[in-house]
Every structure is written in structure tokens, then in C-alpha cells.
């Protein structure tokens, strides 16, 4: 299933010194934010966020609505930066690069995929949804088709859609649509996936399906999952950050955060939202 996804290189004897240097910067953390503040005009939405997201893991972000989770996530792929009046101070390093130095934002975004709160298929055939970005990148048709089949298989959709690839995606169920969007994101082989409450509009069964996919992807890919569903974070995230009012209050291994919160604010939130 994952052969085409480029695995992170294992250290090779001889090149060890060189690798060591690269590692120090980028090999354990996919995302590092330092003193990150974000503003919409004069309103401060993120406050001094210091967060390291480990490579190849699922990291969850939880917190009351309006606390800045979406803004944080959209800052990582520079989507926030398209909002008029948005301003960032402090640094965000994604895959070793400061996002302010990103010159080609389109190429950058191809390495940082995103799944939204509601499925958002494009108004074109199911197949074209998966292959559009490849087509625009100049990938040959035969190859596009192969990649599409592979990705649709990977998200467990191939059997359902193989006979109607040329049909509209809007006939699919919400869960299927969201998996189509996942296949679309995976088609361009991102290293990081940003997930903004991707299951909030789905039924429990579709939610579980999606969670299993995320778990399958971790290891090869770094996933940042915003969720309002604490048990979802517990089920699949290695580490969890709790945010409140634009601040990261606590960031720890998921088990630790839920069973032994260090900050009283975390404790209250976790208690009130667990059942």
C-alpha cells in the first residue's frame, strides 16, 4: 500500500555525520513553532505558542471552540496568511523551513495536505477530484490513473466508486466524500496532513473508518488533528496539546494529559468533556 510514499531515509554508515547535522534541525520534529503570535487585525488569536510536532505521529489539538485551533492549523500551511488583516510574529518551521521564507507557496502546500471540517469535493468527476492536482503538475495520464486507483484503494473507496469514476462526487455519502478528499490530498504525497475536525460531520462508523486510516498513515506521515472529541484524541493521538484562549496550556503524551493533567485548566476541561 505504502510503497510509493517516500520513507524517511535510514541512517547509513559513513554519511552519519552529515545526517547528524540534518537531524538536529529536522528529523524528529516536523513542525516547530517558537513564540508564535497571530492576529486578525488587532485581535490576537494565538499567544506565544511554542509547539514541536514529532514526525510520523498523530498529534492532537483540543480546546474550547474559538480558542484558535483552526487558526493555528491554517497558519501551518499559510492558509491563514491569505486572510486580509492576518499577521504572524514569531517563527514557524515546517519540515525545517521557516514558513516566512517560503517563496513558492503552491509547492509548499503540496507537502502539507489538509482535510476540512466538512467534506469539500470539487465540482468535477470523482476521478478528476483525485487527479486534478496531478494533472496541473504535469503528471502523465496513465500514471495519474494509477495513482488515483492506488489512493482510492488506500482510503477504502475503490470498490464503491470504481464503476462511477466519471460521476459526480456529490452523490456519495458524507463519509465517502471525506475519504475522497483524503485520497485527493494523498495523491500529491504530502509529508504532513492537517486535519481540522475532519469527522465532526460524520456518523460514528465513518468516523472510526477515518481514524483507522489516520493511524495507518502515521509513521509515514505527520498528522496534526484538531478535534472536539476527546475520546478520538485518546484513541489515536500519540501526543495531545490543550489550548485555551490562544495559548497552549499543556502539551504532553496523550495518556499523561488525560490521566494526569498538570495544569488545573486542563484538568477542568478534560473532566467536563469526558464521559
Amino acid at each position, binding site marked *: 500500500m505504502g510503497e510509493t510514499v517516500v520513507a524517511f531515509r535510514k541512517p547509513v554508515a559513513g554519511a552519519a555525520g552529515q545526517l547528524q547535522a540534518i537531524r538536529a534541525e529536522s528529523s524528529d520534529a516536523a513542525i516547530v513553532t517558537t513564540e508564535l503570535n497571530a492576529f486578525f487585525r488587532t485581535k490576537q488569536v494565538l499567544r506565544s505558542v511554542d509547539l514541536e510536532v514529532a514526525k510520523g505521529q498523530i498529534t492532537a489539538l483540543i480546546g474550547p471552540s474559538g480558542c484558535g485551533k483552526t487558526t493555528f492549523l491554517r497558519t501551518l500551511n499559510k492558509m491563514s496568511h491569505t486572510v486580509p488583516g492576518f499577521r504572524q510574529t514569531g517563527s514557524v518551521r515546517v519540515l525545517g523551513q521557516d514558513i516566512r521564507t517560503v517563496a513558492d507557496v503552491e509547492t509548499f*502546500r*503540496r507537502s502539507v*495536505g489538509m482535510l476540512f471540517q466538512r467534506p469539500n469535493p470539487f465540482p468535477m468527476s470523482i476521478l478528476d477530484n483525485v487527479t*486534478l492536482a496531478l494533472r496541473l503538475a504535469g503528471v502523465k495520464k496513465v500514471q495519474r490513473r494509477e495513482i488515483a486507483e492506488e489512493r482510492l484503494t488506500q482510503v477504502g473507496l475503490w470498490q464503491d466508486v470504481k464503476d462511477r*469514476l466519471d*460521476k459526480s462526487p456529490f452523490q456519495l455519502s458524507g463519509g465517502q466524500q471525506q475519504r475522497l478528499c483524503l485520497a485527493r490530498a494523498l495523491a500529491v504525497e504530502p509529508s504532513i496532513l492537517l486535519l481540522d475536525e475532519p469527522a465532526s460531520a460524520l456518523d460514528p462508523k465513518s468516523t472510526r473508518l477515518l481514524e483507522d486510516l489516520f493511524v495507518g498513515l502515521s509513521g509515514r506521515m505527520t498528522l496534526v488533528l484538531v478535534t472536539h472529541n476527546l475520546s478520538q484524541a485518546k484513541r489515536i493521538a500519540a501526543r495531545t496539546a490543550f489550548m485555551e484562549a490562544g495559548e497552549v496550556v499543556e502539551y504532553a503524551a496523550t495518556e499523561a494529559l488525560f490521566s494526569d493533567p498538570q495544569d488545573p485548566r486542563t484538568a477542568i476541561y478534560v473532566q467536563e468533556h469526558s464521559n
Partner: protein
Amino acid sequence: MTRRRFGSKLFAVTTGIAAGGPLVVMLVLMGVLVRDAWPAWRFQGLSFFSGTVWNMGNMYANTPIVRAGVQGAPGASFGILPLVVGTLYSSLIALAVGVPIALLTAAALVYLAPKRVSMWLSPVIDLLAGIPSVVYGLWGVEVLAPFVQSRLGPWLSHVLRIAPFFHGPVGTGMGLLTSGLVLAVMIIPIVTATTRELLAQVPRLPYEGAQALGLTSYESVRYVAFPWVSSGVIGAVILGWGRALGETMAVLMVSGNAANYLPTNIYSPISTMASTVAALLDSALTDFTGLAVHALALIAVTLLAITMATNLLARSLVALGRRGLEAEGERR
């Protein structure tokens, strides 16, 4: 109880009438026009469409000639091919020039321009759509025609010298190209305004999905926003086309009023159907046989038919395109 029933009956009847109104008006209009045009059809037959000579004959003669039981002035001949050609060509130039500009402007207003700019520009465009056509005509005569004559025409003729229809004497500047450009300017506001409204209705989420996938703004607009409202945009284009086909005054002023002349290049003088009806009505009324007026009515019927045909054609093209849905599996 009975009162309520009566009320709902009344409602059904009135809304029924209101809904059927346009259709009735359309049919009545058609009926009257066709009846009015009928004698000219009998007199001229199919050569009405294929003939290139429009001659109302000697309208001061005393003895009419009779053909197919219809009286006409001696020498009368009604061929409108040059008018049909002039109408179609000028409207197609208008679309070719105007539609890309209109679509790009609409996209820019919705997706690129800062809010403040589009807030100011949008009403200006709506205003442009409401300017009387005689004003555009005057602008065409005083500004555009001289420009075409002295600069645009010679330049085009030189650059496109291998393309036959674009190469040739530029003439007075009054003609096909200038008519097409004036029409383009006239349809841009209406197509822009309609498309802008449509694009503003495209949900944010799919567009953002495209951006997040690494598509450029242009690609996101082209592949996600426009397809989302494609049938509406086609409707806007048809609206513009209809306006270009039927425009009378502005074209009359800049067309060069060619008589019985098929355009040989893009600078040739032309006449269109609508402008000819307006221009000739006065003298047609002096035809002692009355046939010339019937012939003008037949031009109007033809124009109506062409407008409806282009409408249908465009809509079926959309339906065809929708069926294919650009599916890679289906296309070669």
C-alpha cells in the same frame, strides 16, 4: 373553511396567470409578428435568407407587380443575407472580446481585489450596464472609429497579414470591427455583473480546498469556482449575446451602413438586422403596396428565431459538457 379554500383557489389562479404570463406574451408577440411578416415570405420565399440584395423597389410607381398573389413595388427584392452575416459576425466579435474580459473582471472582483476596491467598483459596473446605448454609439463614432481607422486597424492588418479576414484596407473605421468592439463594451458590464453575483455564491470551502491542495488562485478559480456555477455563467454569456444580436442604435451609428454588401474583411462596413429595421422603417412606410413593412417584420421574426436558436444551442452545449463532466475515463 370555504373562505380558506376560496383564498387558496384564488392564489393558485393568480400565480398560474402570472407564471404563464411570459409565455403568453411571447406567443402573442410571435403570432402578431409572423402574421405581419407573412406576405413578405410569400413574395420572396427562401431567397429572403440567401439573397444579398435589399431593394424596396420603386415606391412611387403606380402599378404594383404581383408575385404569389402578393403586391409589391416594381423592382422590389428582399434579401437579408448581408444583414444576417453582419449581425452574427459583430455579435461574435463582441463575445470573443467581451466575455474573457468580463469573466476575468468578475473573478478579480470576487477573488483578488481587496474588499474596499470591489465595494467601489461593483456599483460602477452596474451603472455602466444601465447607460443608454446611444451614448455608447456616440463614443464609438467619436473615439473608437478614429482609433480603429488610424491605429488598431493598420496594426491588426499588419500583424495578422496571413489571416485573410484580418488583412485588408482598413477603410473609414466604421464597420464590422468597430461594431463588434462597441458591442463588446456594451455587454461587458452585464456579463461581469451577473458572473460576479454567481461567483460570490460559490461556497468558500471547495475554493479553500483547492488552495490548500497547492492550486494557484487562477487554477482554483478556473477549475473549482467557475465549474461550480458554470450553467449560470453560460446563461450570463447568452444574455450578453442576446443583447449584442439585438442592439440597434449603437450599431447603426458605427456600422458604416453597408447596403447589399457582404463583409470581405473585419474592417468592412456592415449592417445588422436590428439596425436595418430601425433605419428603414420610415421609408418602408411610404411603400404604396405595404410590402416593405412586411419585409421588415420578417427581419424581426428572423432575428427572434436566431436569438432563440443561439440560446438553445448554447444550452444544449452546456448539457453535453455536463454529461461528459470532463471525466478522464471517458475522454481520449
